[in-house]
């Protein structure tokens, strides 16, 4: 009896500690253990078979081993995936059933919040909790989790074992094991590639569903053509000022980035000596690798004051009205300029790639005919590279339109339409951030409007990307 008791205690202890252990490590131990088992048994078996048949197997012994490995691991992974999805709800349901009524009859939102708390505590260790009851509840949760996992892992283990068994059954001298392995690997790879489609679908679905909910309260017409935006108060959702702000910032950025990017690419790929190129190109790549938040900070501490100072200086000029320029501490111009600086390396590296991809033969032919270098570039390389360059510019525009951090940090928050680029403006992306980082209920029109803006942004960038892709495809066709 005592022994039994200790046995039960031991088991429950094991189960409890099972609940405390991180999921990932447990899974890893399970997977690697079973994997090694499957691989080695199948390999040994393959050699035995070959020795028995006195001729080589149709498939390499290693192929047999890999086959068993796949046969074993795939069911385990599937089981673990299922487990990871269902364990939470099962635990919670079980726990709620045991909770006193004062808790279990709470409204769903509060109950969830409470359970979240327990959850968190269960991961970080229950010791820090003050409430004794909560501490007990957390312990119980861990216990339940241990039980669920015990079942889950047992199931996974069995599934893996079944896989190994199946693999060993299949193993014969002439089994087309290699074809199975090939097929299995291909399916796994295909699934990975398919994930990209899922992501797109996810984006589309989330944007569309939420936008749809938004448009059920706000008419799309007033959203697309309304001139006033006051989402925080939930009153007016006319997005034109945001579109305008986005446009202004993007135009400013492109005015800077396109000529500078283009010419620096041309210089680097055609004129610069290799030593110069070795120096400058990484520098530009550094510029490209700097996170946008850094650019945003740069805009705050350097560009915005500079723009403000310059605007004030212009205002101070005689025969210019004193308030001619807004000279705001944050301005669309500052954001646009910094955005432009950010885009320079983007454009220049794309254009550089395109120019370098122009076959050397064109250059030789051009030189051999007595072209000067600039004639060669303008008359021969440029037409060939034009689709690529256009694509680079389109992608840069798309990037400028979708850029968030710089405008959030440096463009300001005021939705208005003005020709004065030194005044602050807000953009679509900046609004999305400010709408979703504000503490508002998720279902409100204010929050949902962010998704509508997101959908608009997505559509715009999609358009530019498609345009870029289609020009590039045309270039490919022409070159082939």
């Amino acid at each position, binding site marked *: 009896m005592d022994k039994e008791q200790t046995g039960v205690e031991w088991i429950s202890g094991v189960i409890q500690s099972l609940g405390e252990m991180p999921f990932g490590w447990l899974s890893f131990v399970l997977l690697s253990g079973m994997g090694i088992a499957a691989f080695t048994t199948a390999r040994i078996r393959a050699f035995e078979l070959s020795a028995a048949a006195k001729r080589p197997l149709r498939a390499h012994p290693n192929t047999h081993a890999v086959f068993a490995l796949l046969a074993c691991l795939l069911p385990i992974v599937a089981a673990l995936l299922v487990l990871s999805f269902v364990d939470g709800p099962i635990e919670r349901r079980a726990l709620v059933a045991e909770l006193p009524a004062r808790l279990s009859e709470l409204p769903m939102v509060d109950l969830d919040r409470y359970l979240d708390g327990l959850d968190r505590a269960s991961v970080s260790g229950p010791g820090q909790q003050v409430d004794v009851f909560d501490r007990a509840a957390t312990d119980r949760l861990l216990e339940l989790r241990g039980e669920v996992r015990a079942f889950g892992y047992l199931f996974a283990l069995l599934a893996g074992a079944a896989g190994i068994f199946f693999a060993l059954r299949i193993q014969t001298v002439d089994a087309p094991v290699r074809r199975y392995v090939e097929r299995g690997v291909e399916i796994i790879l295909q699934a990975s590639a398919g994930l990209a489609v899922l992501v797109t679908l996810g984006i589309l679905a989330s944007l569309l569903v939420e936008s749809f909910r938004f448009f059920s309260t706000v008419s799309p017409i007033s959203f697309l053509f309304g001139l006033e935006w006051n989402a925080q108060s939930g009153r007016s959702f006319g997005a034109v000022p945001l579109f305008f702000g986005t446009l202004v910032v993007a135009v400013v950025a492109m005015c800077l980035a396109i000529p500078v990017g283009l010419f620096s690419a041309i210089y680097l790929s055609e004129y610069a000596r290799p030593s110069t190129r070795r120096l400058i190109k990484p520098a530009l790549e550094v510029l490209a690798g700097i996170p946008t938040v850094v650019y945003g900070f740069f805009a705050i501490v350097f560009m915005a004051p500079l723009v403000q100072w310059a605007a004030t200086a212009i205002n101070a000029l005689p025969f210019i009205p004193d308030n001619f320029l807004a000279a705001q501490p944050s301005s669309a111009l500052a954001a646009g300029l910094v955005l432009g600086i950010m885009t320079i390396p983007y454009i220049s590296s794309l254009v550089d790639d395109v120019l370098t991809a122009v076959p050397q033969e064109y250059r030789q*032919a051009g030189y051999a005919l*007595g072209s000067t270098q600039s004639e060669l570039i303008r008359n021969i390389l440029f037409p060939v590279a034009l689709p690529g360059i256009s694509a680079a510019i389109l992608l840069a525009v798309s990037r400028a339109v979708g850029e968030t951090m710089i405008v959030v940090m440096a463009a300001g928050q005021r939705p208005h339409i003005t020709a004065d680029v030194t005044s602050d403006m807000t953009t679509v992306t900046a609004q999305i951030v400010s709408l979703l980082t504000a503490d508002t209920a998720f279902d409100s029109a204010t929050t949902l409007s962010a998704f509508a803006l997101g959908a608009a942004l997505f559509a715009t960038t999609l358009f530019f990307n498609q345009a870029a892709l289609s020009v590039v495809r045309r270039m490919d066709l022409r070159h082939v």
Partner: protein
Amino acid sequence: MPDDTSTAPGTEPAATVSGRSVKISCRNVNVTYGTKRAIYDVSLDIPDRSVTALIGPSGCGKSSFMRCLNRMNDTIAGARVTGEILMNGIDVNSTGIDPVLLRASVGMVFQKPNPFAKSIFENVAYGPRIHALAEGKDALEAIVQKSLRRSGLWDEVKDRLEAPAASLSGGQQQRLCIARAIAISPEVILMDEPCSSLDPIATARIEELIDELRARYCIVIVTHSMQQAARVSQQTAFFHLGRLIEMSDTGRIFTNPVETQTQDYITGRFG
């Protein structure tokens, strides 16, 4: 036993080679790429209005040598050319010579057909246009037509001058490149293995064209096909390891060469 038709390295410039006036006279030409020496003290005379073939195994320096003649080595970083290359008596490497001008009088055709990604017409018109050789559209069209006729392409393309050059076959593209080269009325045409990417039929067409062109131009052709050199050239120079081994009339080179190295290479006995 070198006779009058073969040029031993280092001799004085001759006024004629095999009865043809000398167009290009090279004396002690050396080429280095970085620290690697590609050409050692090559001296030879290239006659006008005939085809001179440069042959030799891979890496023998024949292409490097040819690229000296229109200073295409200038476009390679680290290339250094010394020695005297006189074209019409003027040293092409002297500082007063603008390579642009030089290349306008020395056309070049490359290993792979490399027409520009433009129309057939524009490909031929490009050279005359940048050098402002034609005043007005008619004059330009005349030049294009004449060049295409000379390159034997006119009948094949006259109805589709605006079609992209890439729509032509490989052999036609190469002939287009020749038309492009002769459109700026060069005095010399350099060809760097012009048929190595073509099949025997296209090759034969190009060879026929070269044979026709030699009535007007001084043609230098690099080829690693001895047979092609034999078929197409009047003089042949054999290079080996960066040195000129022998230069002589093609018939002589292929029936009775002076140097053992030449003989061994030609009969397939090398190494």
